[in-house]
């Protein structure tokens, strides 16, 4: 009885005319693109900060404490930005895609409820950690940071479980366009299609955070300021990024095979494969002209080999579904090639670093290496976004793969272009503010390890001493 009322209520969400569907998708994509790099810092940065503090506890060397403390300030600032950009996302789910939320919220919403609690734990302990530097005993302070590192990982795990479900839905029965008989636990965590996504993202987080953190110290090297502090910071950040970028091709191979198995049309779009082919070739670069890849470099049988580990395997083409069910091929394909291309360069850079590190027991000395590291940070963000574009645009035209189209999910409200324009302006302002803040942090003088280390409060000089509640 209730179920019938429910589905009739959900039927009120079907078939809305929305002229600005593409703008709504772009607005959502923009918000993800802004948020995801911050997620990388949420996953990876606490671990790096804690490592530095752990070294301090092990060695007693105040340099590590200075390092962890400075990094932790950046960490909480980026966390605050991540909080607001994440809030925007949860608003946008309802503001832009009410049909999706109304029909399927009962199936996947649990993932976000779990994420909400992770987020709570992260917010509580990041405050205790960052504001507690001088107040908590050193070991207790270190321990207060551990929940931050754990919650950063679990939070992203729960969100990605929802994405895995959207790409490979299950755990419900569809009735009149809405989910009934939802089984949220098995939908989210009994889904075989989610673990590779999570591991891929987890490793990507270390690549992005590692290279971005290393960038300023590489810049320092190029500017001729490369003392013990900079070397230590660079060694920690770059070690993480180098190892992660070496591992990422292995995880990527696993992910690609899962896509080949579960979402063959997405794979066909990633490769620009119009017709089902045995022993399919891989094309590097080039352009998909609606029928084949032109101006690309073809490598025979490589696609079959990569997707199924068999050079003669048959790879499904785009023709197997009607044109209305195909994603926009060039967007997906170029994004995919961008990600793989940059990922390969970063893996090579990581290899160079680890070779010098382990064979010669020192940091690289070539200026070219440091120039590459400065570039690697922004490039890794491009690869990250390109990877998410691959999987999310590759999911189109579906919001719930095979069950609900984005056009059925979108809002019937007006004003999407106005909202989009406003959001672009606000994000530009936000980006400017964050850049300004990071610049100021990087220019703040070092607390000299050893000497003034013990008593220097983090109070900017302009504040009067009796009102020195810093920050």
């Amino acid at each position, binding site marked *: 009885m209730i179920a019938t009322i429910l589905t009739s209520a959900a039927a009120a969400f079907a078939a809305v005319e929305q002229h600005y569907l593409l703008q709504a998708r772009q607005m959502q994509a923009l918000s993800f693109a802004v948020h995801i790099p911050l997620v990388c810092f949420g996953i990876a940065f606490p671990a790096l900060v804690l490592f530095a503090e752990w070294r301090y506890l092990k060695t007693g060397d105040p340099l590590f404490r200075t390092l962890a403390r400075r990094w932790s300030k950046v960490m909480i600032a980026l966390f605050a930005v991540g909080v607001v950009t994440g809030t925007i996302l949860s608003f946008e789910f*309802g*503001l832009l895609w009410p049909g999706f939320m109304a029909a399927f919220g009962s199936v996947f919403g*649990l993932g976000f409820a779990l994420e909400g609690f992770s987020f709570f734990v992260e917010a509580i302990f990041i405050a205790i950690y960052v504001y507690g530097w001088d107040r908590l005993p050193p070991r207790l302070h270190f321990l207060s940071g551990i929940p931050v590192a754990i919650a950063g990982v679990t939070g992203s795990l729960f969100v990605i479980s929802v994405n895995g479900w959207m790409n490979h839905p299950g755990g419900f029965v569809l009735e009149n366009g809405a989910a009934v008989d939802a089984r949220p636990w098995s939908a989210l965590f009994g889904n075989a299609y989610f673990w590779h996504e999570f591991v891929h993202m987890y490793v990507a987080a270390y690549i992005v955070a590692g290279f971005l953190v290393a960038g300023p110290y590489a810049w320092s090297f190029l500017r*001729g300021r490369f003392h013990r502090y900079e070397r230590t910071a660079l060694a920690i950040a770059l070690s993480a990024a180098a190892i992660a970028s070496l591992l990422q091709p292995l995880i990527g191979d696993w992910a690609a095979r899962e896509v080949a198995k579960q979402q063959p049309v997405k794979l066909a779009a990633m490769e620009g494969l119009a017709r089902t082919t045995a022993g399919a070739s891989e094309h590097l670069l080039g352009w998909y002209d609606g029928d084949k890849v032109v101006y690309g470099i073809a490598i025979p049988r490589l696609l079959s080999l990569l997707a199924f580990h068999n050079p003669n395997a048959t790879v499904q083409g785009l023709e197997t579904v009607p044109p209305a069910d195909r994603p926009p091929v060039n967007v997906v394909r170029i994004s995919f090639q961008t990600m793989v291309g940059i990922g390969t360069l970063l893996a090579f850079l990581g290899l160079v670093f680890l070779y010098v590190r382990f064979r010669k027991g020192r940091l690289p000395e070539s200026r070219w290496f440091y120039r590459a590291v400065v570039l690697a940070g922004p490039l890794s963000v491009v690869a990250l976004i390109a990877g998410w574009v691959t999987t999310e645009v590759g999911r189109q035209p579906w919001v719930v793969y095979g069950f609900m189209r984005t056009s059925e999910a979108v809002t019937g409200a007006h004003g999407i272009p106005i909202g989009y324009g406003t959001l672009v302006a606000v994000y530009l302002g936000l980006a400017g503010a964050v850049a300004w803040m990071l610049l100021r942090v990087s220019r703040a003088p070092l607390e000299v390890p050893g000497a003034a280390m013990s008593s220097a409060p983090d109070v900017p000089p302009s*504040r009067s001493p009796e009102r020195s509640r810093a920050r």
Partner: protein
Amino acid sequence: MLADVPIIFILVGLTAYTVLAGADFGAGFWILFPGGGRTSPAATRDHARHAMGPVWEANHVWLIFVLVVCWTAYPVAFGSIMSTLSTPLFVAAIGIILRGTSYALRGQLDAAPQRRHIESIFALSSVLTPFALGTVVGGIASGRVPVGNARGDLVASWLNPTSLLIGALAIATSAYLAAVYLAADARRLGEHTQELDFRARALWAAIVAGALALAGLVVVRDDARPLFDGLTSGGGLAMVCASAAAGLLTVAYVWASRFGPARVSAALAVAAIVGGWAFAQQPRVLAGLTIDQAAAGRATLIAVVIVTVVGATILIPSLALLFSLFLRGHLDAHVVEARVLDVPGAGAPDRTRLLGALALASLVVGAGLVVLADSGWAHAVGVMCLGAFAASAFGLSATIPGGQADGGKDSRPESPGFR
């Protein structure tokens, strides 16, 4: 019965958000209007700016919690509300970005010469956000949100007497909560004039909020009769009376400069009014949608209850820890005595070779399993091996003595590449 449990979570979350984040938005209000006291406007701004530092993020998560429980447990209602009330909700979202940005910049904004202008934008958003969220509540409470994708009037659903009133009430309540909190904070820091200023502001804001609440009953009677009837009978009436009593008690506490109890009774007043709204409206969630009709299936509701109960057992002690540290000033950063560790634990055995061997072995096994195997368990073991490789290789690479923590040779440049 089960269908009602998540709405209780939502009401608790709304109360917590109103009290905690309300105090933060209110601090923005006093940054915007810092005059009229015995201390200088600049000092007042300084005081208000530092109000919420350590707890802002945690306060903010309550809103996320409300949204998430709503879309999981009452998805159709969520979709209807978000689409019909998209305008004020979008405004609130933008306000939250701006307010959050000022927290991201904390610690840097103090010394910046341009801070006044930047700060005004942020502070303006602190007025805009509670107002917009108040109009959303007004739209729902006055029955202006029908079921369906943007089926309600996209303007009149939030631009109506009840919405405007609740919006204004939200601003006044926030300003009041913040003034009480800031007065208590000023006392903790021993700033007597500041304390008196904020005490006076708290009393004024209380008068305004009380007047708005009374005027509100008149407005609601004309504009949303069912809501009025609900608020003036049965459980709704009891809650309204409780809220009024708690409100008066709070004023008495502030008058007597007892800010600690004042905070508690202010929170009770807010909780009672949220509860009164719930009583007045039940069993309807939206016009033509009861709570039983709105609720998700049994499995989902049970899952939400389990997650919330388990989450609360982690959350409540953590929050208690945070607030006990925060309210006692243990997270103020002006302490002079930094504790430096006594002595390094040098002389640990060198495990480099062992670790290196472990790293290599786990890399080979892990890569083999991830790339060559097809079954799920093999991938799981493979990923774990790769994790072991990453951890041991990182431990080795980041701690190689050469080129970093080598002690004593501080300022010697490493590379001959620059001089």
